[in-house]
């Protein structure tokens, strides 16, 4: 650093002493705007989420879509905060206001801002891509196969509770857990609908 540069940095550092209120006010305004943007991200991600509900999608899409949306929201929030940090800095960070300290801080800050903008750009692209994949998946993913009505079948052989699937060869086909049970129709004494099977 030339001697004249040292003098310029020293003068700039001394001027900063009298601009502290303006600096911190401007940072506060930028952070307020940025944090408002973070809040609106939540609504924006949920608005473009695609179909109304994902509960009727087949596995694994039933879990994939919410996970993608959550990841997208996290990436977009981090991208926004990173960009605000790059643009306005953080008021709690302080440095000794001498020319040399201000010069060193400025060099480090320039490099940090370059990295922050790159990171914010990647996070934004990743977040938007995740939202797009989630929306497409919610529209195109197969819907889970409809289950038969839950019934309790009472017969001479006992009592069964499960999903009523079909009749075949004179027998009822009832899905109990993962097993298919056959009950002769002739033996059935009662069939009644239930909302859940007791375990």
């Amino acid at each position: 650093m030339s001697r004249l540069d040292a003098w310029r940095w020293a003068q700039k550092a001394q001027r900063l002493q009298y601009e502290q209120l303006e600096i911190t006010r401007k940072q506060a305004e930028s952070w307020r705007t940025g944090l408002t943007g973070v809040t609106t991200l939540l609504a924006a991600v949920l608005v473009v989420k695609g179909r109304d509900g994902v509960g009727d999608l087949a596995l694994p899409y039933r879990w994939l879509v919410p996970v993608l949306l959550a990841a997208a929201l996290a990436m977009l929030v981090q991208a926004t905060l990173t960009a605000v940090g790059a643009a306005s800095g953080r008021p709690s960070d302080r440095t000794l206001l001498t020319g040399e300290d201000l010069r060193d801080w400025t060099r480090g800050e320039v490099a940090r801002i370059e990295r922050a903008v790159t990171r914010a750009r990647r996070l934004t692209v990743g977040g938007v891509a995740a939202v797009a994949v989630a929306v497409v998946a919610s529209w195109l993913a197969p819907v889970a196969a409809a289950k038969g009505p839950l019934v309790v079948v009472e017969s001479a052989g006992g009592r069964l509770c499960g999903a009523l699937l079909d009749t075949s060869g004179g027998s009822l086909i009832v899905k109990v857990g993962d097993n298919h049970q056959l009950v002769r129709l002739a033996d059935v004494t009662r069939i009644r609908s239930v909302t859940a099977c007791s375990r």
Partner: protein
Amino acid sequence: MGPGPQASGFTVTGNGADGGLEVSGTCPACHGWTVTPWPYGAVGSKGVLGSLLGRGAPAQEKPTGRRTVYCECGHLHPNRPETAWDYGCGAFWTVELPA
């Protein structure tokens, strides 16, 4: 424009509660008494995630080495640089901070 490093003649003391410094002494050019405060001031950021996770600014290390001081004797001397913002003779020099 001014003298070089000043090995002696300047006092660097603490300046208030924020850990800042204050350098005072006699200007080697105009021989006026000059006092320059060096407080800690807000200048910017060290990252967003750190602030969210409660990691504040790193602990302030004790400043060492040479720092540039310019004359702030309060008098506008002749031949003062036109772009000078300060109220002094325009001379500047460096002072070694105490270890």
